[in-house]
């Protein structure tokens, strides 16, 4: 059996170890993720899901356990192969949409012309064709988040980490963006870790769901979501969807 793309085992994170404000942010998380998978990580605030994401992104050191990324297909460089999307779009207001998408390419000093071409393609992919020269404030919240998604893909990362990317959007826009994300994921073939505290969002998107609980922050269970892709909003009325949702609520103690 080949190694998984991401192998997390017994991962642990303690903030301020040995001090009065010592805080166990992550306790014993094990998770394997295959390349091209869209996996939802769901849990309440303080369950360590963002911490897990930060460790995977190489922005935080784990206190214990192992994290291996790359699997078989060549070395994985966390400074080259990770794209990130946050709850805020974090667009630079003095840059046009196109120049915002190009920011990671500039940091990585990728060839300019190819990057521009790719940025244009990505803006088409996220449904923003013809908006390249607009400024962020001329866009709606949903459109801004589309720009952020295009930006996370511009350097062709192998792994995209999303930390509640639609958490600040209104309910209808959020559902629309869920469908958009599914489409973008299918067309780009990226591995996506999608952190959310929206349970139906987690079920709708993920081929698997990692359910995390707080106090102590740990991984409660991994659930395989056996709903076919491409997924549609009307699947939310499907009885299996309800069953998965109930299972997650149960694990979070919210039945």
């Amino acid at each position, binding site marked *: 059996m080949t190694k998984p793309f991401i192998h997390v085992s017994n991962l642990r994170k303690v903030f301020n170890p040995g001090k009065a404000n010592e805080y166990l942010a992550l306790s014993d998380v094990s998770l394997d993720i295959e390349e091209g998978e869209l996996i939802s990580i769901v849990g309440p605030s303080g369950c360590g899901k963002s911490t897990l994401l930060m460790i995977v992104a190489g922005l935080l050191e784990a206190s214990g356990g192992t994290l291996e990324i790359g699997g078989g297909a060549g070395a994985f460089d*966390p400074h080259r192969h990770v794209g990130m999307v*946050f709850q805020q779009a*974090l667009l*630079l207001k003095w*840059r046009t949409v196109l120049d915002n998408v190009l920011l990671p390419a500039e940091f*990585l000093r990728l060839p300019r012309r190819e990057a521009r071409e790719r940025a244009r393609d990505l803006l088409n992919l996220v449904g923003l064709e013809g908006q390249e020269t607009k*400024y962020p404030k001329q866009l709606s919240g949903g459109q801004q988040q589309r720009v952020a998604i295009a930006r996370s893909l511009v350097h062709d990362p192998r792994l995209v980490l999303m930390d509640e990317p639609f958490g600040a959007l209104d309910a209808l826009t959020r559902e629309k963006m869920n469908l958009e994300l599914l489409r973008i994921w299918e067309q780009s073939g990226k591995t996506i870790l999608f952190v959310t505290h929206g349970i139906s969002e987690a079920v709708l998107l993920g081929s698997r769901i990692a359910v995390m609980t707080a106090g102590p922050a740990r991984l409660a269970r991994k659930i395989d979501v056996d709903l076919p892709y491409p997924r549609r909003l009307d699947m939310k009325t499907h009885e299996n969807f309800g069953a998965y949702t109930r299972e997650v609520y149960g694990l979070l103690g919210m039945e």
Partner: protein
Amino acid sequence: MAGPILLHLLVVLIWQLVADYGGLPTYILPSPTETLATLFEPRNRWIENTGITALEIFGGFLLAVGIGVTIALLFSWSRLTLVLFMPLLVSLNMIPKVALGPLIIVWFGYGVVTNMAIAFAICFFPIVITTARGLSEIEPEMLYLARTVNASKWQIFLKIQFPGALPYIFSGMKVSAVLAVAGAIVGEFIGSEKGLGYLMLQVQINLDTATMFMAVLMITLIGVVLYGAVALLEWLLVKRGGAA
């Protein structure tokens, strides 16, 4: 656009009418025409005096921008400098800069450099504060994002931090532009041999109020030019393209 201009002209007109028919002596309220007429009095040396005052104001202002922004940069690069020096700067700022005038004259003597130094002292602090504030206004998530694509500290500064701080820097510069004018004039009042403030003291002895009015207008004009230049630069760098 026409409305505000008309209102300005209306004020000048009222001034002229009050001066002509208000029964006030000229040494209390000269009319606009009498004020403008002083421009043709060679003893007033308008070009030289205005040039000197403008030099003091612009010099002090530019010095404050250069040094102020640099210090704010040091603060943003080193947390230690910020923690150590910021409280000191705040304390120093509590000193009324105008009160330092006589001291600065002791140190530098009369003249352009002294008045520049007073202008600098009075408009330096707002620039440090606003710039430091602007440079610290970067979301932590933006830093994470930059770090995942291997951004260097310098790249982050150049592409994110500094452009983001520009609106703050400009608001500090606008406040300072007004203060610099006051600083230079106070310097000239305390002790100088040239400049518009000096001219005002000279003609005051003869109750030449019209010339004093004109000097105030020229000082105002210098302030307007400086403020306008800052506003234009702001428009070019920040507001154009609908960014801010």
